[in-house]
């Protein structure tokens, strides 16, 4: 039984002593690296094959017919070429191209890469064709479902007009707007917009006409109904189906036509804002609110 105590002290030299034989070998390797020799010096009695042995294997075998066979000489020469190429690559020099190392790099997963590329391109083409097929299909009349909905497009109006019905309020004061068909009753608070539906001006853009009507209740904008929107093709329908509900909910939450432009529906957004603003202006005008 050894009576050794565990010591926390580090040894003076943490590195283990190098075996003398290993040290000798390392020295030899360092010497070879300095001289640039790829191979260890030949042992006494053996002949190193002359370069280029690959080009003239018969000559090298002739030089040492007894100790090194042609096959061994070729292998040694290939190893020397590989080592030289590796050294050149490490030093950033040009790649040494030899018969053993023709300059090609290993390309793992080559078949899988080609397959991935082909699959990606084919999927892209397939999806594109599918989307095109969807658009060339039958065009159903699309009903917007954001906010609430105006299914029947009225005749386009070029100016904002208030079309609300008369609403009796506690105040009982009656206001008649400039439009002869419009009669609204003034609410108790004169600064609020009167209840009713106000049609905005139709705003045209390069893709079609956008027209909305604003619905006020209790002095608040409670709904925006789409009377017209660009629906000439499925693409426009899809864009507007996506963008208009966002625009409607944003207008209601902001209580104004100051809404963010929906990406991908810039024209519709701008026309929507213009039409809604005109509807709000009409509502304010009908309610006797300046500005």
């Amino acid at each position, binding site marked *: 039984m050894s009576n050794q105590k565990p010591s926390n002290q580090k040894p003076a030299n943490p590195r283990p002593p190098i075996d003398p034989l290993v040290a000798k070998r390392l020295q030899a390797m360092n010497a070879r690296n300095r001289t640039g020799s790829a191979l260890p010096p030949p042992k006494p009695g053996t002949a190193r094959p002359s370069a280029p042995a690959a080009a003239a294997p018969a000559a090298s075998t002739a030089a040492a017919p007894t100790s090194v066979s042609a096959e061994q000489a070729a292998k040694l020469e290939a190893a020397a070429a590989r080592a030289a190429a590796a050294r050149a690559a490490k030093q950033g020099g040009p790649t040494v191209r030899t018969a053993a190392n023709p300059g090609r790099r290993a390309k793992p*997963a080559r078949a899988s890469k080609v397959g991935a590329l082909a699959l*990606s391109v084919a999927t892209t083409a397939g*999806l594109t064709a599918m989307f095109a097929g969807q658009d060339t299909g039958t065009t159903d009349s699309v009903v917007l479902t954001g906010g609430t909905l105006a299914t029947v497009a009225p005749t386009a109006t070029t100016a904002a007009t208030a079309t609300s019905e008369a609403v009796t309020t506690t105040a009982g004061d009656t206001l008649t707007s400039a439009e002869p068909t419009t009669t609204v009753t003034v609410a108790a608070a004169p600064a609020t917009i009167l209840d009713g539906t106000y049609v905005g001006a139709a705003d045209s853009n390069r893709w079609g006409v956008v027209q909305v009507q604003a619905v006020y209740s209790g002095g608040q904008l409670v709904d925006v109904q789409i009377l017209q929107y660009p629906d000439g093709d499925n*693409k426009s329908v899809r864009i507007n189906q996506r963008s208009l509900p966002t625009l409607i909910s944003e207008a209601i939450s902001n209580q104004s036509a100051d809404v963010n432009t929906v990406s991908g529906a810039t024209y519709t957004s701008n026309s929507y804002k213009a039409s809604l603003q005109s509807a709000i202006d009409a509502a304010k005008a009908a309610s006797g609110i300046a500005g």
Partner: protein
Amino acid sequence: MTSWWWYLTRATGIVAAVLAVASLVWGLFFSSRSTGNRLKPNWWLALHNYLGGLTLAFIGIHVVVSFLDSDTGLRLIDLVVPNSTAGWAIGWGVVATWMFVLVVVPSMARIRRRLPRKAWHVVHLISIPAVVLSMVHAFQSGSDATVSWFTRGLALLVGLAVYPVTIRLIGLSQGRRRPVTA
């Protein structure tokens, strides 16, 4: 012709998202040593690198084509600067694109050789939020986001990405808990 740009924009976006998730999954399986014995780690790494590059290529096509499609109303600044005028639905995609550039470019052999491994690894981890943001972008601005097959596909992609992330995190936590045997 603009309609074809539009179809191509959507198709390349979807394919880029799938490729991004595939590259992430390959990388996570490789880094967690969960690649099995059938295929060499070299194969996994090479394919991971290739899928990353292919993802960036398809993102590039997606961006260029969406710019060429005049109907989208996107300007060059919208595709380079997040939330410039197009809103965050597009902005998340721009952020994700820059993240993918940041992940893929330093991983190129010539650049990676000059980078410290730890720095490269930290930058490479950006790929996870990049994939998340690309999914958000697809869901918010994708024209097909309301279509059931698209939403199901997105959910499947997220599930595919979460699985290897979980394996990797479990592996990391086990590695830290492992007692030191001397």
